[in-house]
C-alpha cells in the first residue's frame, strides 16, 4: 500500500535571508495510521504542519516534496490547493478561540466547510451540521449551532473545531496541539473524542504535541523533532523504552512527572542532552 502522506526532503526557510527552520525532513504516513510529532517550541513542528497544508505565509520558501494520496502539493497554486483543504485534508488548531471567527455563529462556520466542497441547499447543510455537532458530543446541538464562539466553553469550542475538521470525512487530519489550551479533564474528553471520531471517519492523523504523554493516548508511532530535524522515529514502545537519541530520552523523562517521587527534583531535557549554544 502506498503511503497517504509522503514528505521527502522538506525544507522551509523564511524571509529575505532565507533562514532555514526545517532542514530536509522525510517521513510517511500510511492510510489510517496515527503519527505523533513531538518536540519543544521552536523545533519546527507547526511549520511542518503548515507546509503540508500549504498554509505558510508568502515569505516562506518551501522545497522538497509533499505528496498526499500520490499528488504532489509543493509548488501547487493556491487555487488548486484550496479544494483539497477541508476535503482531502484538514486541521485542528491549538487555540479554538482564534481558529473560530468571533463574528459568526459556529453552525455557519461548520456549514461553510461543507458548502465550499459540496453543492448542498442551506437547509440540507444545516441538518448535516447539527448531526455532526451531535456526533462530537455537543449537547443541544441546535443551540450550539446558533451560538457565537465567545458563548461557548473552551471544550465546546474545540469540539466545534473538531467537527469542522471532520465534516467532509477527510483522509488526513493534522492536529496541532489540539488540547494544549484546555484543562486536564476537558483534555481527556477531547482526546477520547478525537480517538473515536478518527476511527469513525477512518482518517489518518498527524498529531503534534510537546507532551509525549498526550501523544501516547492516540498514536502508535512517533517522530521526534529537534531544531528543524527529525532526530528519531519509531513505535511508541521503542521511543519509550529504548530511545537512542539523548534528546528523546530527555523528552520521555520530562513527560513522566508521575514516575518521580513528589518533592524530588524533576528530570530536565538538559540532564540528557546539552544543546549546542546558539546565537
Amino acid at each position: 500500500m502506498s503511503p497517504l502522506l509522503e514528505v521527502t526532503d522538506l525544507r522551509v526557510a523564511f524571509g529575505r535571508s532565507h533562514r532555514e527552520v526545517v532542514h530536509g525532513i522525510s517521513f510517511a504516513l500510511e492510510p489510517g495510521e496515527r503519527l505523533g510529532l513531538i518536540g519543544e517550541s521552536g523545533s519546527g513542528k507547526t511549520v511542518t504542519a503548515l507546509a503540508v497544508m500549504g498554509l505558510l505565509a508568502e515569505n516562506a520558501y518551501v522545497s522538497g516534496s509533499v505528496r498526499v494520496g500520490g499528488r504532489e502539493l509543493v509548488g501547487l497554486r493556491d487555487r488548486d490547493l484550496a479544494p483539497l483543504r477541508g476535503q482531502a485534508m484538514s486541521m485542528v488548531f491549538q487555540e479554538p478561540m482564534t481558529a473560530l471567527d468571533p463574528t459568526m455563529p459556529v453552525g455557519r462556520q461548520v456549514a461553510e466547510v461543507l458548502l465550499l466542497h459540496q453543492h448542498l441547499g442551506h437547509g440540507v447543510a444545516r441538518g448535516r451540521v447539527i448531526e455532526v455537532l451531535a456526533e462530537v458530543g455537543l449537547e443541544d446541538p441546535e443551540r450550539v449551532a446558533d451560538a457565537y464562539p465567545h458563548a461557548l466553553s473552551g471544550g465546546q469550542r474545540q469540539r466545534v473545531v473538531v467537527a469542522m475538521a471532520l465534516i467532509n470525512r477527510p483522509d488526513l487530519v493534522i492536529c496541532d496541539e489540539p488540547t494544549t489550551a484546555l484543562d486536564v479533564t476537558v483534555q481527556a474528553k477531547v482526546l477520547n473524542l478525537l480517538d473515536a471520531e478518527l476511527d469513525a471517519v477512518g482518517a489518518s492523523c498527524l498529531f503534534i504535541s510537546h507532551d509525549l504523554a498526550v501523544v501516547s493516548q492516540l498514536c502508535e508511532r512517533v517522530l521526534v523533532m529537534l531544531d528543524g530535524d527529525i532526530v528519531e522515529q519509531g513505535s511508541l514502545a521503542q521511543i519509550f523504552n529504548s530511545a537512542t537519541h539523548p534528546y528523546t530520552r530527555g523528552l520521555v523523562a520530562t513527560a513522566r512527572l508521575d514516575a518521580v517521587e513528589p518533592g524530588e527534583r524533576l528530570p530536565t531535557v538538559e540532564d540528557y542532552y546539552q544543546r549546542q549554544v546558539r546565537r
Partner: protein
Amino acid sequence: MSLYEVSHVSRRYGRVGTAGSVLAVDDVSLSVEPGQRLGIVGESGSGKSTLVRMMAALDAPTSGEIRFNDEVVSRRAERDLGDLRSSVQLVFQDPRSSLNPRMRVGAIVTEPLRSRLLRASGQVPLDHRARLAEVLESVDLPIEVADRYPHELSGGQRQRVAIARALAPKPQVLIADEPVSALDVSVRAQVLNLVRDLVAAHGLTLIMVSHDLTVVRHVCDSVVVMRHGRVEEQGPSAQVYGEPRSAYTRELLASIPTFRVT
C-alpha cells in the same frame, strides 16, 4: 498563628439576580501556615484564581474576611496594605503579558523595590543593583539579561524573570497562578525545580494555583480542590492524591494523561 486565615469568603461578579451574575467563590474557608506549600486545583471557572486574587488583595470579597498576619486585609485601603504588598508577591501564568514589553529586564525586576508603599514598610532591600544581581543569580539567569527586553527571551527565561521580580522585595509568601501552564513540558520541569529550590532556600510560603494535578503534587504539601467556587476537598497532598474522598477529585486524577504504551 496562621499566616493566612480565609473565613467564609464569597465573591460575586455582577449584581444578584441580573443576567451574568456569577458567584465565582462561594463560602470558602481555609488557612495557610508559615512555610506551608499549598496547591489550589480545579478546572477553568472553578474560582481558584479569584480566590488567590483576593488573598493578594487585588480583589475584595463580597462577603467574608481574609486575615494576613492577624490583620484583616479584605476591603482595606491601598495605603494600609504596605505589609501585605511587600510580603506577598505573585507570579502569573503568561510571562508575555505579565512583563512590560517596553521595560528592560533589569528595570522590571527592580520595579517592586522602587515602590513607595513597599519602601515604607522598611523591609525592602535598598541596594537595587546588588539585589538585581542576587535574584537573577538565584533564578539561574546571567546578569547580561538585565539589559534585554522580554521579547528577546524564551518562554522559560521570561518566567524566570517573573519569578526574580517576585523575589526581589524578599517576600514571605509567593503566590503562583498557573506558573507553568503556558510552558512546554520540558521547560516546565526546569521552572518547577526552580520554584521548589527557591521555596526551600528562602523559607517561603507557597500558594500555587494549577489545573494540573501532577504539577501541584510535586511542589505542594497540601491541596485544596475547588469546583464551582466551593472547596470540594482539602488536605495533605499524600491523602488527597492517595485516598481522594470526593468523586470529583478522583475524576480529576483519572484525567491526567499517562503513558499508554501497548
